[in-house]
């Protein structure tokens, strides 16, 4: 069997396995979405049910909560694979780990970021987001959550060998999430205010492309370091 064929076979089986595991542990998968839903529904109760007040806050709120929901799910990304020795087997596979971690981060996005993106417009209604903001919200979250998954995976890989890496993970990752948050929220805000939002969206697209290419390098390095413990 040729090399590229067996690489795609390996990647396909990593992809399938991670999806199957995610669906068998549905509670882990639903956790971020339920968090997202709960916090957003509580906002009108806590701040003000007035549509005009909420509409002003909605772009920023939706983005901040989505970001925190993503952060919540990161710790488990490599944790179980580290605990049961799968990580060693992945590293010892002759196939490049670079592509394997891309698949793993992608599955993480499919099971957390993508569902968040899909329910976000619904929650936009709850926060009285003006109708001009829905498509930009959807687009910015689509690009943004993908970036968050890949960047967050770096932190997850760095802290996987620590028994209690949760706090450290947040501290490492938060600063890297800030630019995504700024441009994500400003995409939606510009659209609501009637200003062209494609500029901010393009910057988000650039973040996303950079994260897709460069984050796997950092993840590979961090994982190889983590198994040495």
């Amino acid at each position, binding site marked *: *069997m040729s090399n590229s064929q*067996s690489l795609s*076979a*390996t990647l396909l*089986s*990593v992809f399938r*396995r991670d999806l*199957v*595991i995610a669906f*068998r*542990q549905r509670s882990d998968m639903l956790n971020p979405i339920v968090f997202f839903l709960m916090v957003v529904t509580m906002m009108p109760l806590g701040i003000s049910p007035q549509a005009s007040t909420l509409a002003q806050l909605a772009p920023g709120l939706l983005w901040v909560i989505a970001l925190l929901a993503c952060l919540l799910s990161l710790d488990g990304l490599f944790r*179980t694979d580290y*605990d*049961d*020795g*799968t990580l*060693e*087997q*992945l*590293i*010892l*596979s*002759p*196939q490049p780990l670079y592509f394997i971690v891309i698949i793993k981060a992608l599955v993480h996005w499919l099971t957390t970021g993508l569902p968040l993106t899909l329910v976000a417009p619904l929650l936009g209604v709850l926060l009285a987001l003006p109708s001009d903001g829905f498509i930009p919200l959807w687009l910015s979250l689509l690009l943004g959550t993908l970036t968050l998954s890949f960047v967050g995976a770096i932190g997850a890989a760095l802290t996987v060998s620590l028994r209690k890496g949760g706090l450290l993970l947040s501290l490492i990752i938060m600063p890297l999430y800030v630019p995504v948050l700024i441009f994500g929220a400003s995409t939606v805000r510009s659209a609501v205010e009637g200003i062209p939002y494609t500029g901010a969206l393009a910057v988000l697209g650039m973040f996303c492309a950079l994260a897709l290419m460069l984050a796997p390098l950092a993840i590979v390095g961090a994982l*190889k370091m983590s*198994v*040495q413990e």
Partner: protein
Amino acid sequence: MAALTTHSTDHKTNTALLTFKQFGCTRDSRVLFEGIDFDIYAGDVVQVEGPNGTGKTTLLRALTRLLPDYEGEILWRGKTLSHAHYDFLSQLLFIGHLPGIKKTLTPRENLAFLSSLNGTSTLSDIDDALAQVGLYGYEDMPCYQLSAGQNRRIALARLYLTKALVWVLDEPYTAVDVAGIKKLEALFEYHAKQGGCVILTSHQPPNIRDLKHLSLTDYSGGDSSSASVIEGAYDE
């Protein structure tokens, strides 16, 4: 029997599969072992020996390059391991303390995934391998319903599937019953006869013909006490 002996001597005239040259490991400024010169040929079954804490697992992990900071050199078919990394990994099967079995998956799914990391296996091959380790009828049960020994057997079923030459096994006998151990030993001998090699650690003496021993107490940091602390032993 005679044919078997000639077979293994034939291989020994070739280059060794693996060569340790002045090989040593230091962890946290403690010299675990140093100055190991050892050749492993096709057809060898090598038992790495030593009391707890002498670095058996460390040696195996350094050999697989999960642990890249060691002194000396390891050669794979005469080439430095870092230069022949891909070639070596595609001929390697490593089963560590943690066998990489996911509890939420079934034995069949686990095995299909693990074997896909290095080549592929058909479903019938996988079921045959599971039958070999006595898990016939358990293929579709989630692994959290199986016992520790049965989970271990799933990992060991990889030995029936793999085409790898070099088997590196850390305590393969853990949680395996007597009959299972007998079967494993027969498999190791068969694999060696086919021109592969097996490197294993175990606290019970394996009952294997022509077993080679690599005793780490012979190389422990110049001091007979395995817990000796030697400061400044780094060259960095």
